[in-house]
């Protein structure tokens, strides 16, 4: 379990992480979601003591990471794929890390096998592709068979097969009761992988909830209603406090009322319905609407206009 309390990090006058509180529970995959520069990596670095918090604390299983007797047994961390000396072979890199804890060479060969690095284990890391670097980073994270995994963008640079492999791996690790914190800016990936999502934007927690709740909360419930008497229905629903938008003749999008209540309202007004459909937004849309205004680096011009048009719709 990872617990952050009032965790804050300033770099000079820039506030990277702004007093965040969260708990990452064992037995689940927790997605850490946010735009670039939102504070994901900084928070993860503070969890394993690489960055010193300006204020606040973060503990792993009740203690700051540095106070554990066997840190590699406690937390496996993948911060970036290239936290490796390029002049050393993959196996020697893992051997050097394993030696600090007296982890036997057998285990090194085992994680090489788990991550599929057998063919390149004795090659220098300098020549590795991004995907192979990610696999080596994951091998290092698994070295101590840790109870907690902190993985910053683990699927970055992986091919589709690799992405699927990481997804299965982290789901498996969580099913064994481990704590898994996984960051990504790929919403679709999170939808497939995470049970719970923490959304961070500009250093603050925007949302911290199960995946389904995030989707529901961010979009509210939109209900699509088709009726030959759309105008009359719109007036009736608006008196009940709903926001109604007419998309095309005979088609309404209703916010603020759920489907049963819309149906009841139509029945009591004697209005015929042809369709009554709750619309679930995708996680992607949920995320974009949550982080709107929290994005540090805003694209301007046509792309941004297009992206926003899609969300607004």
């Amino acid at each position, binding site marked *: 379990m990872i617990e952050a309390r009032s965790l804050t990090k300033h770099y000079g006058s820039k506030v990277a992480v702004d007093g965040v509180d969260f708990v990452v529970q064992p037995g689940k995959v927790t997605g850490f979601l946010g735009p670039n520069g939102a504070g994901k990596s900084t928070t993860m670095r503070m969890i394993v003591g690489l960055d010193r918090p300006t204020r606040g604390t973060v503990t792993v299983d009740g203690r700051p990471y540095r106070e554990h007797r066997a840190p590699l047994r406690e937390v496996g961390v993948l911060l970036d794929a290239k936290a*490796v*000396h390029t002049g050393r072979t993959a196996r020697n890199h893992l051997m050097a890390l394993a030696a600090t804890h007296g982890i036997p060479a057998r285990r090194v060969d*085992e994680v090489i096998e788990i991550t599929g690095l057998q063919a390149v284990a004795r090659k220098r890391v300098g020549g590795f592709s991004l995907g192979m670097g990610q696999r080596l980073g994951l091998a290092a994270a698994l070295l101590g068979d840790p109870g907690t995994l902190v993985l910053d963008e683990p699927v970055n640079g992986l091919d589709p097969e690799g992405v699927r492999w990481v997804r299965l791996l982290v789901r498996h690790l969580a099913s064994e009761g481990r704590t898994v914190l996984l960051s990504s800016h790929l919403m679709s990936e999170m939808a497939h992988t995470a049970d719970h999502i923490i959304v961070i934007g500009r250093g603050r927690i925007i949302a911290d909830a199960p995946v389904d709740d995030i989707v529901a909360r961010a979009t509210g419930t939109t209900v699509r209603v088709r009726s030959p008497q759309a105008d009359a229905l719109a007036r009736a629903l608006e008196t009940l406090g709903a926001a109604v938008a007419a998309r095309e003749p005979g088609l309404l999008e209703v916010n603020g009322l759920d489907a049963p209540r819309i149906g009841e309202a139509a029945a009591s007004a004697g209005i015929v319905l042809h369709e009554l459909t709750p619309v679930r937004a995708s996680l992607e849309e949920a995320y974009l609407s949550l982080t709107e205004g929290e994005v540090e680096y805003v694209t301007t011009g046509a792309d941004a206009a297009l992206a926003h048009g899609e969300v607004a719709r």
Partner: protein
Amino acid sequence: MSTTAPQALRRARLRFGGVLRSEWIKLRTLRSTVWAYLVTVVIGLGIALLLAVSLQQSVSPSGRGGPPRLPSDLQTHYGALAATSGVSFAQLAIAVLGVLVISGEYSTGMIRSSFAAVPRRLPVLWAKAIVFGVATFVVGLLIMFASYAIAGPVLSAEGISTSLADDGLVRALFGGAGYLALVGLMSLGIGTILRSAAGGIAVSISILLVLPIIGQLIPADWAHDAARYLPSNAGQGLYSIAIQGDDVLEPWQALLVLAAWAAVALAAGAVLITRRDA
């Protein structure tokens, strides 16, 4: 992930002995280390041979079977001079290596892996210092004794004969190795402070080569006195056998001065390493 070695993993603990082993693996698994030590050995032996040959011509110009033999303390002085003559060149390779041992971790990002495994960080620096210091001392001893073995016969052919039993000779050979190790540790400290290969190497080489020249150029007594405590000048006291007129520190003073340079650089690095974000 299930494992075939659960017991061994359950016993795994972070221990200083493990960090030492880790640093030894890191040192010997980089080609740059191997090359730097090889260059050090080749330069050390080559210079010793060159100097022995040139001493042979300058000190006893009269040639083979020539007349008056040099006084025995002077013979020992020249013997040590030839055997340790490679030190002032070898120190450059060692200084570069000392900086790279730590700056290479910063430039590649390896330092984050190292500190994630050893989050208290200082054991990493101390283990690096011990492993690199001992390795350099051993390589230094190898160079010193091999240089003596090469230079000795060349000199004795010209009547400059020495023996390891001569007063101060073994001390000078050990002193050369100790000098290389301490210069290496100072550079390791400087590399830790600056975290960059270019900056660390520039500062280390400046301290070793440029400051002594500046010390000579300033026409003031204080500058002359201060220059005696620069590493390369202090080193002369450690690995040479002084004869009359030599202005060098006593060997034990030289050892203390060099240890102080290494200790101050490493201590500053240690303070910064625990305070900075990695």
